[in-house]
């Protein structure tokens, strides 16, 4: 018996390789890493366009001299940085920035901690208050600037009106000696609600028993605050301080709307100085160099502060 093996006719003609794989969804053929990259690609492109590119271009600008009229660019090495560091106006602005950051962080921290402690308590109207205090944070900075112009103005301002009722002469809150603290009040007013919510979340996890035990042990209110409350809020407070400090160091819109850097240069912080150099004076090289100095200093200070806070937090955990 002979067995003839007939070639079995394929039920269907063989398909091209591509066609076979076409049945497998595209996303399944990708490795998880590639699929991940694909998902973030649009955002990555956007970030490249609006963050990485401008930052890289400003670095490039800081090493060239750009003729404001012809646009011609000549490589000048570190000359722009040298101009920045030898300009007394830069050091004046740097000092104002430090002063402003200190004022804003101290005020914002104090107010937000106070608000958080208040909101932790149970009282009638607490939900309403919780909703109301977030209002300053939800306002645009421009709107905040307009509102505070109507508070500060010695001509038609709210405070001037109160002073007048009290028989006092109006005060110029935006004069050269008071302008930065006044701006800091506005800044802190706007950002303290954020801190309050931040800290409130931490305060609410503190077991009430700890306070009761503290009272039994004869701890006063201050001692209970430093020994029980503070350890819980130290880290979130640190994070908030870094946030608000960085925000204050780069503040521009509020200063622009309220004082335009004035009177004279009394509120000309580094960010305003960068704006003036770059956009008003068309001095792109020194403007970019100043912005890089600010960026490097801010990054270093923030990183150092975080490192200190984290190591201190670790030490505390070990001790406890």
């Amino acid at each position, binding site marked *: 018996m002979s067995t003839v093996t007939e070639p079995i006719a394929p039920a269907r003609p063989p398909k091209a390789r591509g066609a076979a794989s076409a049945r497998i969804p595209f996303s399944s053929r990708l490795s998880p890493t590639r699929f991940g990259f694909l998902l973030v690609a649009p955002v990555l492109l956007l970030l490249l366009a609006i963050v990485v590119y401008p930052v*890289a271009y400003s670095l490039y600008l800081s090493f060239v001299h750009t003729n404001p*009229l012809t*646009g011609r660019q000549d490589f000048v090495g570190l000359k722009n940085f040298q101009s920045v560091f030898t300009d007394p106006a830069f050091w004046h602005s740097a000092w104002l920035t430090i002063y402003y950051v200190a004022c804003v962080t101290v005020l914002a921290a104090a107010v937000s901690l106070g608000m958080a402690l208040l909101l932790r308590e149970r009282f009638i109207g607490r939900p309403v208050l919780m909703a109301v205090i977030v209002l300053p944070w939800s306002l645009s900075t421009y709107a905040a600037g307009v509102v505070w112009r109507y508070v500060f103005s010695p001509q038609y301002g709210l405070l001037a009106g109160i002073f007048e009722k009290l028989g006092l002469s109006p*005060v110029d809150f*935006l004069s050269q000696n008071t302008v930065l603290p006044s701006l800091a009040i506005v800044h802190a007013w706007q950002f303290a609600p954020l801190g309050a919510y931040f800290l409130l979340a931490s305060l609410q996890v503190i077991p009430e028993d700890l306070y009761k035990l503290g009272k039994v042990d004869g701890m006063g209110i201050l001692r209970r605050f430093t020994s029980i409350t503070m350890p819980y809020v130290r880290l979130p407070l640190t994070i908030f301080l870094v946030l608000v400090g960085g925000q204050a160091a780069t503040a521009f819109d509020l200063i622009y709307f309220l004082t335009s850097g004035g009177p*004279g240069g009394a509120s000309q912080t580094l960010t305003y100085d960068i704006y003036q150099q770059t*956009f008003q004076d068309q001095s792109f090289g020194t403007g970019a160099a100043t912005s890089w100095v600010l960026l490097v200093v801010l990054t270093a200070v923030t990183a150092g502060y975080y490192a200190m806070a984290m190591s201190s937090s670790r030490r505390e955990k070990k001790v406890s």
Partner: protein
Amino acid sequence: MSQLSRRRLLRAAGLTALAFGAGPGLAACAGSQVRTPRGGPPLSAPATGGASLNMRIWGAYPDFVGGAVKDFERTYGTKVDLGVIAGDYPSLMTNLLRQNTPLDMVYSLWHMPQAYYEAGWIRDFERFWAKEDAKREMVPAVREALTVNGSLIGLPYFAFVNGALFANTDVLRKANLEGDYPKTYDELYAQVRLIKKRGATDTPYLPSFWSAPWFGITFGFLQEALNRNIPLFGDGGLPVFDEQSAVVDMLRQWRDLYNEGLVPKGVLTFQESDWTETFAKGGVAYSPQLQYDLKTFADPATSQVAGKIVPVPQQGQHWGMLHVGAYLIGDHGQGDDVLAQSYRLAQHFGYRDQRTGEFDVPMAWAKNYYMTQGYTEVNNSPELAESVAKWLPDPETNLPVLRDYLTNPQAATSLFHTTWGPTWMNFASHELPKAVNGDEDAKTVVKNLRTKAESLIDVYGH
């Protein structure tokens, strides 16, 4: 999940570095883009329809401008995209023009176009079909203001005096000084002291824009120096002032006014609207203001001193200096057809409308807002006089005073016709307040102003 290998990481890093380098490179190329060559035969008015145009303005009466744009679109069939630029208009516009943004018609103050024109960011009006007629009809000082390097670079949007001195007759009456107007700044400052001494008001003087926005205090500085005949800038913009200049004494007088509380508190951080609001509130005897704001002060809806504010006559010394706004045409490499459409839009707004042959939009500005124009025919028209008489106190006395302001105003041409003028003015707007509030001695401020001008001449050439 697959690991990211070292090779792939390096490849990604390399591509990123390339992107970093390519971006600035491309931008550098864009920055040195070739502009449209100048010259060419005069253009003829185009047929209706055609190109779509971009027009950018600052936020003054955008509804009125929008209405005029609609009229233009209806009449000529040309679409116009009108945009209002908020914030620091001069800086933003400078950067938009630098970047070749396709802007066909934009507002500008007259100290900006010298740099714009020399940089090749704007087209001139040398090929405009009605150029000669428009120039002939312009107020001579306006024509000179809008002529850069021999070329007409724009058509006038407005022309009036910045720093026209206004008096509040109510306060003067209380001080028993009604009609006794000062003839010079020295007399003015003596009189404001007397007004305070007599108890008519605490802050009798509101100075001219002593704050930073829109070059404020610098305008005040330039106009008072001009009015006092103190030379600041010579030919080609060379500074001719130094620490021995009479301008030092002028700044010391400003400091005295500030120290003695003769000016309202907070003037150094006023925003633009504060100047009019403070004067309109009452209690100020004298204030140099934009001439066109006189109508605002006469309107009971916006002013508590309506009917009491009058212009102080010029008796020998000028008050204020020429302030001109212009319609400019951006250079974005447009062809003759688009340029012709832009000329027609500029003509509609800044000259006689091509179809009606009348000053339609300029006259409407003048009548509705007392925004006087760069054309004598508009400013001296019976139509405008009739309109002004409705709100100006004692028009028979005061209208000639207003016309006199516009007849032969002083102008800061030697500074405004430099490429670096706006940059110097920005610097001065932050430097001059220091002389007022005592942060710096007046001599130091004047020295800094001169040094800045010299350093800018080194950078810009002239």
